[in-house]
Structures are given as C-alpha cells and as structure tokens.
C-alpha cells in the first residue's frame, strides 16, 4: 500500500504550479471576470504547449498518455489558480465521454484537437433546473437530427463541439437516453451566453433545430455512459475544489497574520484561529477522500462509483466552507470586488452545482454503499 502521489507526480505538480503562478495571476483571472474576454486564450494555448490538456489522453490520440493520477495533479493546480479556461468541460467531460464511448474515427477527430488546444468541448446535459436524471431530458433525436434546448451548458458559447444527451425512446427507463456528438460549427445550432455565478467559466443556452448529430456509443446506452462520465468528472472536479479550498485557506491565514485589530494580529484571536482550523479540517478530509477517488479512477476499480460520490460531496463542502470563511476572515475587505476572495466564493458555489447538486451525489453515495453492503 502507498497512499500518496509519486515523486514524479509531485514534480509535475510543482511544474504546473510554477506555470500557473506565472501565467494565471489573479490579474489574468480578472480580465475574464470583468468580461474582457470569454476565457483566457493565451493560458489555454500555454496549457496545450505544456501538455496539460492531453495529459490523460493516450499517445495514439495526440496526448501525453500519462494517466488520470497526473490529470488529478493538474486539476488541483487549476483549482488553486482559479484558471479561467474551459478545462473541466473539455478535459473532464467531453474528452472522458469520447474515451469511454467514442469510436476510432470520433476519437481521431476530437482527441488530438483537444490535446493541442484547437478544440473546446463540452457536455450538453441539463435542461433547466434539476439534478442529472433521464427523466429531465426532453431534447429528442430522430432520423439523425436533434431538436430541443440545453441549458446551462458549461462553456457552451466557446465550445467547438458538444456531447449531447438526447431522448430516443419513451419506455420510461434509462435506456431511453442516447448520446450524440455535435460539431457546433455546423448548422442547426443557436448559442446564447447566460450570465452566471462565476463569469470566469461561462454558461450558455444551446438550441438545436434539426441539427445533424453522430451517435456516441450504442443507442440506449447514453445514461450508463453519462453516469460513468459524471463519476470520473466528480473525482477530477474534486481535485479542483481541493486546490481551491487550499488556496482560500492560505489567503485567510495570510490575512489573519497581516491584519492588526485591537493592537493584535487578528490571527491571535481564538475565534479566528478556530475558524481557520476548521477550514483546514474540511480541506484535509476532502483531500483524503479525493486521493481515494484518484486511486479508484486511475485503476478503474469497482470502488470508483462510491469513491467518486464521496470525493464530490466532501470536496464540494470543503470548497464552499473555505471560500465563505475566507471572506469572513477578511472582514469588509473580503466583500470588495478588489479583493480576490469573491472569485473563489463564486467558483466554489458554481462548481457545487455543475455536475448536479449535493442532493444528487448524496443519493448516489447512499445507493452505492447499500449495494456494496448487500453484496
């Protein structure tokens, strides 16, 4: 047993952190936050050049073929830096869907383009409010064309292609759902940007009107593929959330050492110390759960569904907890646009919803634990 990243993986982490510290300063994040650009194109290009976009994509498809543990390492750093790029939608959702279910031609077409930074991808799953469920999918696929509306679609306004969940049956079962790949630059698609909690990662509404689409995976297998995609993305997002939690804690700690009130560093007040200690506790629990998820993801272990749900819940709670208390430690300053605290608060709360809210993952976790106990 060895429950830690390897020295090589830690070196990769240092490399990624150094790169992001240089290329993804809070100032760079703010350019996107302030609406000057929909995402940081320069950073995206740099990430491709570093090989980070294709780190878990096999070499045959233009990636580095390193693996998912390495992707977890990068994800944590992306979260720390609050990177304003479509990383999660492209790399965790679109690429993973293709890796799980794509045919040779689909993989050849899109995966090298993802690794090189030429193609941004996304998953078009949701249709308004609610958690992931076959029942909520109304968009139809018939005779090779899609009709319906998806929202919110993460990074939908800048994506080149989307994996779309569509209804192909009416039996009332999971088998009614199939997946499709759509080149969004072809016709039949109308995209509208939506304002959202975290402008550093855009959201869109996409309307499909007799839009040509290619099946991804077998007909009727859509929901089972989606569940696998969401589980994998849950682990990867958990690492981003862990990175964000750590950074928020660090910001709070630094401010507590810096700021003087009543003639003392505010970090010497026990109420503040204990608040920061509690942030450390939740960040640590989330990190440990995420490590377990990383192991399950990288070995495709039977434990993955349970581990993914646990990582997701724990990391979501930790990031929200650390981000909100970071503002509290900063007092009034923390509530200003000028300070960076709100960027993490926004990201934490947006990420808490993106793969379905806590209630979905709580349900999944308990179902999966029950199954295991019954077995």
């Amino acid at each position, binding site marked *: *047993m*060895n*429950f*830690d*990243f*390897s020295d090589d993986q830690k070196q990769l982490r240092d490399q990624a952190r150094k790169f992001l510290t240089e290329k993804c300063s809070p100032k760079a994040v703010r350019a996107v936050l302030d609406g000057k650009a929909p995402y940081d194109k320069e950073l995206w290009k740099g990430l491709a050049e570093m090989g980070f976009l294709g780190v878990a994509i096999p070499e045959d498809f233009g990636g580095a073929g390193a693996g998912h*543990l390495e992707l977890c390492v990068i994800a944590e750093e992306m979260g720390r830096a609050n990177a304003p790029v479509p990383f999660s939608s492209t790399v965790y959702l679109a690429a993973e869907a293709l890796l799980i279910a794509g045919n040779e031609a689909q993989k050849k077409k899109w995966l090298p383009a993802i690794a090189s930074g030429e193609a941004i991808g996304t998953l078009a799953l949701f249709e308004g409010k609610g958690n992931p469920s076959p029942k909520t999918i109304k968009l139809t696929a018939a005779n090779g064309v899609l009709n319906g509306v998806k929202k919110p679609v993460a990074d939908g306004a800048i994506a080149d292609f989307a994996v779309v969940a569509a209804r192909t049956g009416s039996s009332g079962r999971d088998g009614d759902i199939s997946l499709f790949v759509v080149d969004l630059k072809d016709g039949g698609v109308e995209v509208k940007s939506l304002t959202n909690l975290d402008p550093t990662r855009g959201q869109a509404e996409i309307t499909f009107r007799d839009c040509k689409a290619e099946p991804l995976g077998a007909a009727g297998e859509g929901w089972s593929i989606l569940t696998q995609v969401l589980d994998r993305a849950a682990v990867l997002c958990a690492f981003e959330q862990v990175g964000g939690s750590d950074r928020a*804690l660090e910001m709070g*700690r630094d401010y*507590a*050492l810096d700021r003087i009130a009543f003639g*003392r*560093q505010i*970090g*010497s007040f*026990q109420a*503040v*110390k*204990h608040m*920061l*200690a*509690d942030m*450390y*506790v939740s960040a*640590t*629990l*989330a*990190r*440990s*759960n995420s*490590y*377990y998820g*990383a*192991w399950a993801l*990288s070995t495709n272990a039977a434990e993955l569904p349970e581990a993914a*749900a*646990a990582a997701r*819940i*724990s990391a979501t*709670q930790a990031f929200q907890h650390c981000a909100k208390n970071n503002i509290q430690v900063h007092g009034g300053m923390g509530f200003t646009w000028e300070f960076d605290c709100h960027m993490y608060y926004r990201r934490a709360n947006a990420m808490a919803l993106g793969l379905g809210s*806590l*209630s979905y*993952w*709580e*349900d999944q*976790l*308990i179902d999966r*634990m*029950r199954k295991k*106990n019954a077995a």
Partner: protein
Amino acid sequence: MNFDDTPQEAEFRATARAWIGANAPKQYEDELRKSSLGRTQLKNANILDVAKAWQKKKADAGWACLHWPKEYGGRGSSPIERVIWQQEEGPFGQLSRMFIIGHGMCGPTMMAFAREEHKRAYLPPLASGEKVWCQLFSEPAGGSDVAGLRTRAEKDGDDWVINGQKIWTSGAHYSDYGILLTRTDPTVPKHKGLTMFFLDMKSPGVEVRPIKQASGASDFNEVYFTNVRIPDHQRLGEVGDGWNVSLTTLMNERSAIGAAVSTGFPELFEYCSSLMLDGGPAIEDRAVRAKLANWAVKASGLKYTSMRAISALSKGERPGPENSIGKLVAGSMIQDVATYALDLQGAGGVVSGENAELAGRFQAMLLRAPGTRVEGGTDEIMRNIIAERVLGLPGDIRVDKDVPFNKIPTKGRG
C-alpha cells in the same frame, strides 16, 4: 498511489489471518462486534480478564505491540503491517482498548527516556498486557493547562517524595504502574519546573478513588499521593525537563494513528438500513440520506487521512500535528450520530439499557461521547494545535508564561 498489498504485505496478512482464525476468543466475537463507544462489555465474563488473556496469547506468539522493537516485547513491524494486523484483528481489537494508554503513551515515553535495564524489565510485561499502565498528568488545577499542575516532588537522598493529587486518571484502579508528571521547582516559570517519573501504583501512600462518570461508569479516578517515595533512577528525562518529556508522550499519541478512530458511522448506517419509518425503510428517506452521506464522507475522510499519515510514516516521515484532526472530527461526530440515532427512535429513544432498541447501543454512545471531546485534549485545544502548529498562527496570549509558578495568582477549584 496503490491500495493493493505488496507480495510481502499479502504474505503478512495471510499469516496474521491464519493465526487470528486459530487463536482469537471467538465466543465473544458477536458481542464485541455489536459493541460501540461506551458499550464494550461482555455479559458472562470480565472484559479485563478476557482482554488480558488475548493480549498474552498474542504476546507469546509475537503479535503484541507490533511496531515495538522485539527486545521490548514487540515484533519490529512496519506501520503498514500494523494496519494490516488491525484490519485482520477486527472486533477483537476492541479488547486492546484496555491497554491503549499504556501501549500508546506510557510505553513510547519509557522507550524514549527510561534506562535500558528498565526498558527491558518493564516494557515486555506492558506489551503482553500482564501489567497495565496509566498516565498521571491531569490535576484539578491542571487539565488543558497541564503545566499548571501542583503535585510536588521533593528530593530526599536518592529518592523523591511525592505529595499531591491527580484526577481523571483512566484505569488507575486496575493499573500496576503509571507515568507521573510533577512539579520539582515552583520558583521558576511553570513549564520549566516540571519533572517526569514512573512509579509502582502499589507504592505506599498512593490512594486511588474511582470517580463516577456522567455516563454512570467508573473508568477514571482521583489519585492521591501522600509521601510516596520514588527512587531517582525512575526519573524520565532530566530534572526540570518534564514538559518536554510530556510533549514526547503526546507526540507519540499522534503516531498511534493506526488505531482506527470510532465515529459511530458504521453503526448508524447499519441501523438505518434495517429501521422502518412510517413511510418505509429509513435509508430511503431523503432527509436520512442527506445526513448519512454527510457523515459517510467524514468517516471516509478520516480513514484516508490516517492512511496518508501511515504512508508518510512508512517512508520515514514523522507524523505531524495535522493528525490532531482525527479526534477532533470523530469526537463531535460520534456525539451527533448518537443524537440522531435516538431522534430516529422518537419517544422510544429515551429508554436506555438492555430493554432499549439495539440493547441501548446508541444511548450508551450518547452518554460516553462528551468524554471523547475532552480526554486527551479538548476540541478547543485541538483547534489551537492545528491553528498554531499547522497553520502557523500566533499562540494564545499567556499572561503566566514568564512568571515564577509560585507567583501566579490562583482562584477557582485549584
């Protein structure tokens, strides 16, 4: 990152499993499995006798205190082998709770500070459970502020003469030996005037008075010292260096991380899986699920945090203060879990003991839980440790730090 056993680990596991299978006191397995915090009792046997017999059997076959050196009664095992042993020992591991203070705190302190001949004489019978040890630190005026203790040790020839009182001493009533923190110099600031000893609990002048706890049980005691003589060779560390020695004790408590902390979660999950509410099985209720999921990730987070610590240990890194989170999280969790289990029982939850639901398992847990948040350092002290030693925040303001101990104003129960 790898969870699978290496070939050597797998071999160790197989050997341990075979030995446990052939030797464990199986007649108590079911009772031990159904016990939880506050409720490790056996119906037809004295638990201390059963625990001692199992420990002795393990020691004779080389399975006691696995990570201790062989010459002191251990096996010289790696931290990971210790975890594998705990996994295989399963419910029988509950029995070693009786020895946790001796094995986790007193033994390692002896190993670090006792003379070689004492280590060879005292440690093997401690490892084998033949002799039980207790830790005599806390006093009425020195709990969280343990350096505020008043028990005096005065030099008289080759002996030290002890006078004073300890309190909350777990297991003192059945202990053979103890490690004892005393004040040897009241004229210097409080941390500088302390000295550590070990002593025979049967020494003349030692009087143990059991205290009845909030839970109704009597696991801890008051211990009075009247002119108790301890020979100087039983001193641990230098005169005046007792504070550092006690820090070693507490550091070692942290490396006892392998010992899985009890959270109450498996008990609650099992309960909710079988419990029927008005609308159906409890576990299918949305609100119940949300609660369970919340605790599930705390329990797994703790489990994997300790695995990370063990991985660090096995690479030769020292466990740091970050391991303080185990008790901090588990302590209030077990209290909340017990409260919730009773809430699910509604008005019936008020009944405790044998006639209660699950023979009063959660009621016993509820009544024992407050102690968990206090013993070995309160939640507040744990948070201070994390804030100061992990996050590097300033220490609390200490008005008595540089004042000679005998000039510190006193008020309250001390």
